[in-house]
């Protein structure tokens, strides 16, 4: 499956905008990415292993946080996982 990498995180994937991994679940896909690019890990997860609050994982058009099996959700080759930091603010 394809994992789309946003610009801020590309320095940790050799400046690739997308990375293909073989995976059966969302968790395996992310694990495949971070094992290939170890520096990526700390940008996605806190030191205690939780997904950083501002990082959103979207499996196609679905927020992984709200899928019944979350990161255990099954994936196939045609799926796309998007890593998308949040955008918010105000005065």
């Amino acid at each position, binding site marked *: 499956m394809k994992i*789309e990498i946003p610009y*801020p995180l590309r320095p940790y994937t050799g400046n690739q905008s997308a990375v293909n991994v073989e995976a059966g679940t969302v968790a395996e896909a992310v694990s495949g990415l971070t094992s290939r690019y170890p520096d990526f890990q700390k*940008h996605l997860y806190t030191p205690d292993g939780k997904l950083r609050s*501002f990082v*959103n994982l979207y499996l196609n058009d679905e927020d992984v946080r709200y899928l019944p099996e979350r990161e255990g959700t099954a994936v196939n080759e045609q799926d796309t996982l998007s890593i*998308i930091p949040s*955008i918010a*603010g*105000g005065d």
Partner: protein
Amino acid sequence: MTLRLSVQVYDALRQHGEETYPHECCGVLLGHFLEEAGRAVNAVEEAVRAGNTRTDSAHNRYNIAPQELVKIQRAARERGVEIVGFYHSHPDHPAQWSPTDFAEAHWIGCSYVITAVEEGAARVTNSFRLAGTREEDKAFEDEAIEVTGQLDPGYEPSPMGDAARK
């Protein structure tokens, strides 16, 4: 560091802030990351309006739904452009980043454009580049706004548009 955008895009994002006043507007800037003679230029081709999901406090907060952002990013990639920045307005508040803006900024390398809208009229527009390498060392840095091109014939800018243009 420079943010480069056409006068049409510049006026469009300012006009968006006037339309949503007294609420904050927000949107995404699509274009290319360029290096010109050692200078980092975020060259904008298009501004895409986004919905502000902070309906609970839209006068002083904005949030773009991640799902909308995913769709904007996907469509951008299909057209060969990238998300290079974001814009929002500060109704009756200066065009300076706030502690909330900084805390919620995570797109390192991207431009964050803020337009002050006073009593419904766009005033100053500023841009800030989110510099750094990670959350722990990120910082907003002032960046120049380079407005290119000319207005389309017949275009009527907002009353304050020319006065505020850098």
